């Protein structure tokens, strides 16, 4: 272990060794929210999907919105960490681990939401037993499981050196089983030249693959919608549009995570304004792309004004006016202004912008899924209000909150297991002041 690594580890040791009273309150709070979600889930299983707001027209509600959202955040983490790694971006060290954790944690939560949409969870194994390759859902099953596998390997390779560091850092005051765990997980890595070379090669290969897989998986997800004939979904642009929207949402989640850990673990020295600006610039570029794709998609629908597209756009500008404005106007323009204008470029501003972007992108997915299902080719003629207009119930909201809580909980646990800032190889050259102009 190099000296500077030791110094760093010493500094991060307290957050790994101890959990303060605040930490326990936080974890208890998260567990309570997850508990509410479990209760809601039991209600849904015992009473049927009737307890949700989904009905025969809007057959997919906010569950699928959450599914797209979490998967998007995950692919974004993969794309950002993979790209930063491949291009050996100098300032990446303090933030890349967070991106990797975002990838894997949201990837574990996302698929859970699609399971909530499924009426017969007892027959889930039919997806394998009777799987049909013609169905985009089968593509999704294959793609997502490949992605989980690939991302887990990538994350493991990325933290391997720090696992070895943890094992070798004897001053660490931890229970025996945890030290043993580090020893097992470090796989006997001692940092010989041969090991370094192999690890480097494997990480490079996985970084490349993770980028490719992320693009494929998110396109497949988009195709679930665009292969159908529904107005608003049947669009060739959906594949790349979803990929861009995903990376965009991921950059915002990364900024928020950076802000959070910087505050809680006092990482002001490691995560500086330069990092916020650097990820902010990524967010700005993606905002521009996202705006372009959104504009392209709606412009062509509106200009050609096919009857059903016209009805859909009317619906978006009437019933869904504010969500539409927030997601497709404010969500695009705000990062351009805040990150684009030097005077506005502060840590607080960038973080607040990222919060708006996260909300905007969640709404963007809502506006893709729900209004289309509410405006089918044959007009909905039903006297039951809940059959006409989708309105999510407490069950769906509880499970949404539980997903967010689980995300936070897993992140907290992960940060207790390994330093949230990469220690291995975090030398002087990583100091952002020197490399970022």
């Amino acid at each position, binding site marked *: 272990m190099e000296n500077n690594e030791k110094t760093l580890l010493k500094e991060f040791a307290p957050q790994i060794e101890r959990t303060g009273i605040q930490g326990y309150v936080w974890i208890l709070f998260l567990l309570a929210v997850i508990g509410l979600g479990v209760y809601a889930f039991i209600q849904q299983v015992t*009473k*049927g*999907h*009737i307890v949700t707001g*989904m*009905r*025969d*027209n809007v*057959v*997919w509600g906010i569950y699928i919105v959450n599914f797209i959202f979490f998967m998007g955040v995950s692919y974004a983490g993969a794309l950002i960490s993979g790209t930063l790694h491949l291009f050996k971006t100098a300032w990446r060290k303090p933030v890349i681990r967070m991106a990797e954790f975002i990838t894997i944690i949201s990837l574990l939560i996302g698929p859970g939401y699609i399971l909530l*949409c*499924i*009426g*017969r969870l007892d*027959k*889930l194994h*039919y*997806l394998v*037993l*009777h*799987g*049909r390759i*013609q*169905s*985009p*859902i*089968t593509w999704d*099953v294959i793609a997502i499981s490949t992605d989980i596998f690939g991302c887990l390997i990538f994350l493991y390779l990325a933290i391997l050196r720090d696992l070895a560091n943890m094992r070798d850092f004897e001053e660490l005051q931890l229970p025996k089983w945890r030290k043993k765990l580090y020893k097992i997980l470090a796989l006997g890595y001692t940092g010989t030249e041969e090991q370094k070379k192999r690890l480097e090669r494997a990480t490079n290969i996985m970084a490349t693959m993770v980028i490719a897989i992320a693009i494929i998986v998110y396109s497949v997800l988009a195709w*679930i*919608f665009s*292969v*159908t*004939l*529904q107005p608003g*979904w049947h669009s060739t642009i959906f594949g790349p549009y979803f990929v861009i929207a995903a990376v965009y949402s991921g950059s915002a989640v990364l900024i928020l995570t950076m802000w959070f850990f910087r505050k809680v673990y006092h990482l002001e020295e490691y995560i500086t304004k330069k990092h916020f600006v650097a990820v902010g610039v990524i967010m700005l570029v993606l905002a521009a792309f996202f705006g372009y794709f959104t504009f392209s998609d709606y412009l062509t629908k509106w200009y050609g004004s096919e009857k059903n597209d016209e009805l859909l756009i009317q619906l978006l500008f009437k019933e869904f006016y504010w969500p539409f404005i927030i997601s497709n106007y404010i969500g695009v323009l705000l990062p351009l202004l805040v990150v684009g204008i030097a005077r506005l470029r502060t840590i607080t501003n960038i973080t607040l912008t990222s919060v708006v972007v996260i909300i905007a992108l969640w709404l963007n997915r809502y506006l893709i899924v729900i209004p289309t*299902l509410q405006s*089918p*080719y*044959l*007009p*909905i*003629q*039903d*006297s*039951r209000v809940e059959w006409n207009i989708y309105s999510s119930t407490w069950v769906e909201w509880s499970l949404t909150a539980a997903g967010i809580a689980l995300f936070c909980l897993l992140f907290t646990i992960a940060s207790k297991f390994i330093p949230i800032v990469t220690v291995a190889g975090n030398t002087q050259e990583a100091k952002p002041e020197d490399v970022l102009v």
Partner: protein
Amino acid sequence: MEEEQSNNKNSRRQFLKKGLLAGAAVAAGGGMLNAYSENPAGESGEKVKVMTTNGEIMEVDKAMLKLPRVSVAESHLGIPGKKFVMVIDLGKCKNARKCVEACQRGHHLPKSQEFMKVYLLQDSEKTSPYWFPKPCFHCDNPLCVSVCPVGATFKRTDGIVLIDNNRCIGCKFCMTGCPYSTRVFAWKHYPEFDEDKEPYSPEASSPGKEGTVSKCDFCPDLIRVGKVPYCVSACPMGVIYFGDVDEDTVTNGTETYQFSELIRDRAGYRYLEVLGTRPCVYYLPPVDRQFPVDRGFNDLDESIKNRYINTPYAKKHKL
């Protein structure tokens, strides 16, 4: 048991031999229950009261109520040598809803699940509104079948698109795949499902199963005993014709037409042809109306009437 099955099979063959038309004639001639008397199960001596599709109460032998149900495996195959087709004459529909009610009784459906739906459509502002009964179109290029991840919905050799509720995992992808809003989901266990004590068969679409998708099935269990679907025999106006493309005949129970001639002479068309799904249900345009459109608002339950209050026609006439 085995003997009974082979008996069933024989009788089924007999019925098929007699052909669809004979069966339809029987169905038309005074109630659908006549055909049951040929049921090889024999009379049990136990009488039960039933409601016919016309809404009349009849007393019949219990054994007569049973339609033979084929196994799940057999229901995947389709009836050999057949290719079914439906023709709906929009000029005759007055939204009597007998088709919907008979279908719901026949398939043991709750009121909230309709395999047959009746829409009030108006293609554009100046064109005339019309009632539009809509079953499943049993498309020849069915997107619902393509997107199903487990093969729970399938296209048979006789053209029927069926659902195997035992296989269905309830992902609802087929519901978003269908551009005609045909499919319904069992959002909970409805008490009506328990009315059916027979073993499940995809051909009967009954008993329904919570958390799975179902839809209009063209009633293959009725076809097998030489009868026409519930909606066809129940319609008091004879709006719905059912038949076989290869035999080139369709019947509504009282009138029988040559399918190709009917389509040619009456300018038959398929709904939303532009989508490329190739439906097996044809419509005859709403010309030479037998009823004014507003007749369809007569004798409707308030809740059914409320379905149409937001249509341009109802708004204009303050119905």
